[in-house]
C-alpha cells in the first residue's frame, strides 16, 4: 500500500500561489499548508475559485505565480500516483463500472493480477456489486458518484480531492458519500473537499478554507468557523447572506 511506505508526500505547501487568465486574476496570491490526515473543507460562493484551487493542488493546472511543493522530494510520477480527485460531475469511461475501476488501476501501473482483486474490493466497499457489470454511463447520478469514489478508493491515495461530491445527490446517497469520506479518513487519506452544504461541512471538517472572489479570506478550525468566524464575510456566509 502506498501510504504504508515510510515516505510521505504530505504536508503539501502552497507558497504565493496565484492564477491569472487573460489579464484577470482568478486566484489572488495565497499560502496554504495541507497536513497529513487532515479533513479540510473548501467553502465559498459560486465562482470563488474552489475548483480552481483544487485543480492547482492536484496538478491539473500550473499556477501562474508561486509554487506548489510536495514533501519528500518525490518524482512527479510518484506524486501523481499518490493522489486522486473526484470531480463534481464524474467522468466515467464507456465501459462497465468494474472496468472503470480496473482501467484506473492499470493507468497507475498496478500489476494485472492485483488489479482484479483491488477493483473487486473497491466495488464491494461502496456497495456496487449488483451493478458492477452495467455500463457506467447508464448508472444513476448517485451510483456514478459512488463509482467515482470507488475508483478513487481503489487507487489508495494519500490525498484525495473531492469537488462537491454530494451536489445533486439524495439524502441517502449523501450519507453514503459522507461515510465513504470517513472510511477514507480512517485509512489515513488526507481529505480536501468543497461543498455548499453548511451542515455537511460541520459534520465532516477539521478545518475550513473560506474563499471569496479568488481570495483566501479565512482558514479556521471548523468550530471556530461556524461559531466565531474571524471575518465579516465568513460570518455573513454562515448566516446564509450573500457575500461578494
Amino acid at each position, binding site marked *: 500500500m502506498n501510504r504504508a511506505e515510510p515516505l510521505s508526500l504530505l504536508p503539501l505547501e502552497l507558497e504565493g500561489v496565484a492564477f491569472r487568465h487573460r489579464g484577470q486574476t482568478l486566484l489572488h496570491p495565497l499560502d496554504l499548508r495541507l497536513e497529513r490526515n487532515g479533513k479540510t473543507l473548501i467553502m465559498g460562493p459560486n465562482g470563488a475559485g474552489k475548483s480552481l484551487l483544487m485543480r492547482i493542488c492536484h496538478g491539473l493546472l500550473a499556477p501562474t505565480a508561486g509554487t506548489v511543493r510536495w514533501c519528500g522530494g518525490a518524482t512527479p510520477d510518484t506524486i501523481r500516483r499518490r493522489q486522486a480527485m473526484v470531480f463534481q460531475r464524474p467522468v466515467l*469511461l464507456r465501459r462497465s463500472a468494474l472496468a472503470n475501476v480496473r482501467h484506473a488501476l492499470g493507468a497507475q501501473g498496478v500489476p494485472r493480477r492485483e488489479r482484479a482483486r483491488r477493483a473487486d474490493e473497491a466495488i464491494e466497499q461502496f456497495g456496487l456489486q449488483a451493478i458492477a457489470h452495467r455500463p457506467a454511463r*447508464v448508472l444513476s447520478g448517485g451510483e456514478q458518484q459512488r463509482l467515482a469514489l470507488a475508483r478513487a478508493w481503489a487507487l489508495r491515495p494519500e490525498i484525495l480531492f473531492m469537488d462537491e461530491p454530494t451536489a445533486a445527490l439524495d439524502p441517502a446517497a449523501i450519507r453514503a458519500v459522507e461515510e465513504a469520506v470517513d472510511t477514507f479518513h480512517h485509512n489515513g487519506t488526507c481529505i480536501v473537499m468543497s461543498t455548499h452544504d453548511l451542515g455537511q461541512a460541520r459534520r465532516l471538517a477539521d478545518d475550513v478554507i473560506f474563499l471569496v472572489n479568488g481570495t483566501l479570506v479565512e482558514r479556521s478550525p471548523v468550530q471556530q468557523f461556524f461559531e466565531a468566524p474571524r471575518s465579516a464575510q465568513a460570518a455573513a456566509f454562515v448566516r446564509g447572506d450573500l457575500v461578494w
Partner: protein
Amino acid sequence: MDNAFQAAFRLIAERDPVLVEIVTLSLQVSLTAVLIASAIALPLGAAIALWQFPGRGLLIVILNAFMGLPPVVAGLMVYLMLSRAGPLGELGLLFTPTAMVIAQVVLILPIVAALSRQVIEELWGEYREQLQSLGVSRLGAIPTLLWDARFSLTTVVLAGFGRASAEVGAVLIVGGNISGVTRVMTTSIALETNRGNLPLALGLGIILLVLVATVNAVAYMVGESARRRLG
C-alpha cells in the same frame, strides 16, 4: 426489361463465374483499401485531435476539403503518380488491382482521418482531466480513447468502405477496367450497360445495392446499440 431482371437474378442464383470474379475483386480491393486507410488515418486522426502543432488548423481544413474529393480527380492524381513518366512509374503498377487500392486509399483516408479526429477530439475534451488525474499521458490516452470511441469509429470506417465500394471514377482511370484483371462492380456496370449486356449490369447493380444498404444498416445498428448500451 422483365427478361433482363430474370436473367440478372439467374446469374446471381447460379453464381455466374464472371459475376463472382468481379464481385470478389471488388471486395478485395475495397477491403484492402479500408484496412490500409484506417491503419494510417485512425492514429493520424488521434494525433491531430490530441496535439497542438503549427499548421494543425490548415491540416484539418485540408482533410475536410479532401473528404469531398471527386473520385475522378483522385484517380487522375494517382494516375499521374503511377504512369510511366510519373515518379512511381518504375513500379509498373498502373492498371493493376494495387493501383485501384492506392486510388481508394487516397479517396477514403481523408474521410476516416477527418471524422475520427472529430470523434476523438470530442471524447478527449470529456476525458482529459480525468485521464490527466490518473497520470495518463497523451500518448498513453490513445488506446483508451480508441477503445471508448470504438462504436463511433466503426461507423466512420464503414462510411469509408461505403464510399470506396460505390465509387467508379478513380478505379476506372487507374485500373483501366481490364477484363479478368481490374474489373470491379462499378466499372463493369458502366461498361456492360453501354454494351447492352443488361443482365450482368443489373445483377452487379443489385449486389452493389445490397452491399451498400447492408453497410449502412450495420453502421446504423452499431450507432444505435452503442447509444442504448453505453449512454
